[in-house]
C-alpha cells in the first residue's frame, strides 16, 4: 500500500526540481496578437523577423508576435518559454543607457502590467474581465499599434488582498519587466502596489481612490477623481436628495479611508446637513452586524446614506434595509468595477442608489465612444457590459499618454509628458491634466443611478464637476 505513495511523492519532488521546461508561466499573458496566449496546446515556435500585422486580433494561433532578440531560450530571468511570445523582453533592462529607463519597451512592443482582483473577497466578474481585458489594445495593435509598437498587457490577479497585490506587482516588474503598472479596483490593493511601484521607480496609474497615502508618491498618477475630490459633489447630491436633512455615513473599517471619511464629513457639514449616523462597518460583516447596522440606520432617521465599501457588504446591507422597510438614497464614490452586477444581485434593495463613477454606463457609452460596443461585439461575439467600459476607458487614457510621450519612450519621458500640463481626454474617463505638484488630475465624474426595473445602472450625468 505504501509503495504507490512513495512513487507519487518522489515524482512530485523530482518534478519540482527538474528545472524550467518550456511551458506556461503563472503569469497570465495576454499577447498582442498571440491569439492563444497561455493555452497549453500552443507550441507554435516564436518566429524571428518580420511578422505580418494581423488584420484582426482574433486570429487564433495564426501569427505570432515578432520575437524579440534572444527570445525563446530560458536565459536570465525573463523568458517565458517557447509558447508565449509576449514573455521575453531582455533587450532592455534597468541598466539601460543614460537616455532613460526603457524597461518594457522594445522596438516592437510596449509592455503594460495590470493587476485586478478576479478572486478574493470582492472580485470583479472573471468571465467578463477575461473577455474585456485586451479589446482596446487588440484594436489598436491591429491598426499599427503605438508608433509601430504593439501594446501587450500582462495581467495578474491580486486576490483582493494587499499582500498578494504587492506580490503580483513585484512579479510584473521583476519577471515580466513591464513598462508601467496599472491598478483597477480596491483601495488597499492600489495603495500597497503604488507604494511598491514607487519604491522601485515604476510609474503607477490607477483610478483615484484615497489620496493621503498616494499624494506623496512621485510616480503615482490618478486617472479619475479621488474619493476626497468627489466628496463636495456628493455633499451637493445629498443636499438635493435629503428631505429631512439627515444623513448617515457607513465606511468600511480600514485606515485607507480615513481621508475619505474626513472629506465627506466636511462636505455634509458645509451643506448644512446633520450627520445622524457615522460608524464604520467590518470588512467581513456578519449577518448580525448587517442587521444591526440597517436597523440602527433606520432608527437614526437618515434618508441619505453615504456608503464606501465592497459590494459584498453593500448588497446585503441594502437588501436588509429594504426588509426593514427602510429605503434611503444610497450615495457614494463608486463601487468597484461593473455596477450592473451589483444591480442584478442587489435589486430591489439598492433601488434608490446613486454612485459617482469614472466611466459611464452602457446607456451613454455609444454617445461618448461608439467604437467600444462595436469592437466588443466583433472581438468576442458577446454583448458588451460595463466592466468592459472601465477597462476600455483606462486603456484609451493610457493610449493618449503614450501618444503624447512620443516614439522615444522612457519611463522618464513618460512621466515628464504627464506633468507637462497637457490634457488627456479619452471621452470615457474624465479628462486629465497633471502638474508636477498635482498627480490627481481629474476634475469630473459620471453620476450613475440604479434602475431596478431593468436591473442595471444608467448614466444620470456625464462629466459632471458639480451638481
Amino acid at each position, binding site marked *: 500500500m505504501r509503495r504507490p505513495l512513495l512513487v507519487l511523492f518522489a515524482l512530485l519532488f523530482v518534478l519540482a526540481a527538474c528545472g524550467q521546461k518550456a511551458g506556461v508561466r503563472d503569469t497570465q499573458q495576454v499577447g498582442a496578437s498571440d491569439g492563444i496566449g497561455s493555452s497549453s496546446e500552443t507550441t507554435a515556435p516564436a518566429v524571428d523577423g518580420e511578422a505580418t500585422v494581423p488584420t484582426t486580433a482574433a486570429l487564433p494561433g495564426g501569427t505570432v508576435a515578432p520575437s524579440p532578440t534572444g527570445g525563446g531560450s530560458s536565459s536570465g530571468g525573463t523568458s517565458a518559454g517557447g509558447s508565449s511570445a509576449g514573455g521575453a523582453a531582455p533587450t532592455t533592462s534597468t541598466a539601460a543607457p543614460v537616455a532613460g529607463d526603457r524597461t518594457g519597451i522594445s522596438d516592437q512592443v510596449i509592455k503594460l502590467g495590470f493587476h485586478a482582483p478576479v*478572486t478574493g473577497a470582492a472580485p470583479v*466578474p472573471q468571465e467578463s474581465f477575461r473577455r474585456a481585458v485586451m479589446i482596446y489594445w487588440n484594436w489598436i495593435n491591429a491598426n499599427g499599434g503605438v508608433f509601430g509598437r504593439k501594446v501587450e498587457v500582462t495581467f495578474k490577479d491580486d486576490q483582493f488582498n494587499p499582500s498578494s497585490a504587492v506580490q503580483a506587482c513585484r512579479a510584473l516588474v521583476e519577471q515580466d519587466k513591464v513598462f508601467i503598472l496599472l491598478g483597477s479596483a480596491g483601495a488597499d490593493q492600489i495603495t500597497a502596489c503604488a507604494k511598491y511601484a514607487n519604491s522601485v521607480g515604476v510609474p503607477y496609474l490607477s483610478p483615484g481612490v484615497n489620496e493621503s497615502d498616494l499624494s506623496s508618491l512621485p510616480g503615482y498618477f490618478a486617472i479619475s477623481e479621488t474619493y476626497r475630490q468627489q466628496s463636495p459633489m456628493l455633499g451637493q447630491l445629498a443636499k438635493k436628495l435629503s428631505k429631512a436633512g439627515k444623513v448617515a455615513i457607513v465606511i468600511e473599517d480600514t485606515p485607507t479611508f480615513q481621508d475619505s471619511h474626513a472629506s465627506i464629513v466636511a462636505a455634509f457639514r458645509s451643506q448644512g446637513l446633520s450627520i445622524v449616523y457615522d460608524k464604520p462597518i467590518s470588512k467581513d460583516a456578519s449577518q*448580525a452586524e448587517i442587521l444591526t447596522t440597517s436597523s440602527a440606520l433606520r432608527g437614526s432617521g437618515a434618508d441619505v446614506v453615504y456608503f464606501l465599501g465592497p459590494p459584498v457588504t453593500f448588497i446585503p446591507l441594502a437588501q436588509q434595509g429594504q426588509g426593514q*422597510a427602510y429605503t434611503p438614497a444610497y450615495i457614494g464614490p463608486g463601487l468597484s468595477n461593473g455596477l450592473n452586477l451589483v444591480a442584478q444581485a442587489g435589486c430591489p434593495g439598492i433601488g434608490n442608489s446613486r454612485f459617482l463613477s469614472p466611466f459611464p454606463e452602457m446607456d451613454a457609452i455609444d454617445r461618448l465612444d461608439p467604437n467600444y460596443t462595436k469592437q466588443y461585439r466583433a472581438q468576442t461575439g458577446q454583448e458588451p457590459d460595463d466592466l468592459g467600459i472601465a477597462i476600455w476607458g483606462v486603456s484609451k487614457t493610457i493610449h493618449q499618454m503614450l501618444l503624447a510621450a512620443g516614439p522615444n519612450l522612457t519611463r522618464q519621458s513618460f512621466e515628464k509628458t504627464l506633468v507637462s500640463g497637457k490634457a488627456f481626454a479619452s471621452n470615457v474617463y474624465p479628462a486629465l491634466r497633471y502638474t508636477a505638484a498635482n498627480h490627481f488630475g481629474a476634475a469630473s465624474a459620471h453620476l450613475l443611478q440604479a434602475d431596478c426595473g431593468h436591473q442595471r445602472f444608467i448614466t444620470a450625468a456625464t462629466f459632471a464637476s458639480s451638481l
Partner: protein
Amino acid sequence: MTAQALVIGIITGAAYGLVALGLVLVYKSSGVLNFAQGEFGTVAVYALWLGTTHGIPYVLAVLIALGVAAVFGFVTERVVVRPLADAPRVTVLVATAGVALLAVGLELWIGQAQIRPIAPALRRQDRLRILNVYISDQRLLIILTVVVVALVLRWVFTRTFLGLAVLAASEEPTGTRLMGVRVERLSSAVWVLAALLGGVAGVLTGPLSGFGPGFLTSSALVAGFTAAVIGGFTSLPGAFLGGVVVGVIQSLATSASWLADVPGPQTAALFVLLVVILLARPQGILGRAS
C-alpha cells in the same frame, strides 16, 4: 437598542443553531468533531445555484441540492470516516478538516471566487415586526426548521429503536453488533442525516447574504461549535438554544458602544465566550457532568 439586539440575535442565531445541530448529531453518535459540517451546506448551495441557473425549478433544485449534500456526506463517511473508525478522534477531526478544505478547493474551481446572490425560498421581507425589527419569511422558516429538527431528533434519540441503536453503537460498538444491529449502516445513516442538515442550513442561509467558496464554514462553523458547546454538545435542543445565545451575544457585541474601538468585536466575543464556558463549565451550560 438592547431589546432590538436580542431580536436580531435570535433570528441570526437560529442559523448557527442549524449548523450546531448537525455537529451535535455527529458528535453524539460517533464522538467526532466534524469540521466538514459547514461545507456540506456550501456544497448544497453551489448545487442549488447551478440548478437554478440552468433553469431547474426552485423546489426541484433544492431537492437536488439536498441530494448532493447527502451524497457528499455518504462519501465522506465511506471514504474518510469509516476507515478511521479505530483511530483517535483527533485524527478523524484532521481528516474532516481535510474534507472541508477539499470542498473549498472544488468550489473555487467550479464557481470561482465570486460572492454570488441566490434567491430565497420565501421572498416576503416584512412579515413580522417585533420591537421595530422586521423578520422575513426566510428567517421565520429557518427558526421553524431548527426548532422542529431539534425536537424531532430528540424524539428519535430518546424514543425510537433507531436512535437508541445509534447511541448504543457509539458506546459499545461490539456489543451492539452482537445484538444484530448493523453498526456500519447506522454510521452511514448518521452522516447522511448530518449532511442533509448541513444542506438545509446552506440552502436556507445562503440567500441571506450571498455565498462564495467556503461561506458556511467561515460564517457559521466557529459559531456553530460554540453553540454546540453551550448546549453541552450532546443536547439537540441545547444546540438550538446555544445558537440563539451566540447570536444574541454577537449582536450585543456589535451594538455595544464600549466595544466600538475593538476590531472584529463579534469574533472576539465568540472567542471569549468559548473560553469562559470551557473554563467554568466544561460540560457546557446545558450539559450534564459525566
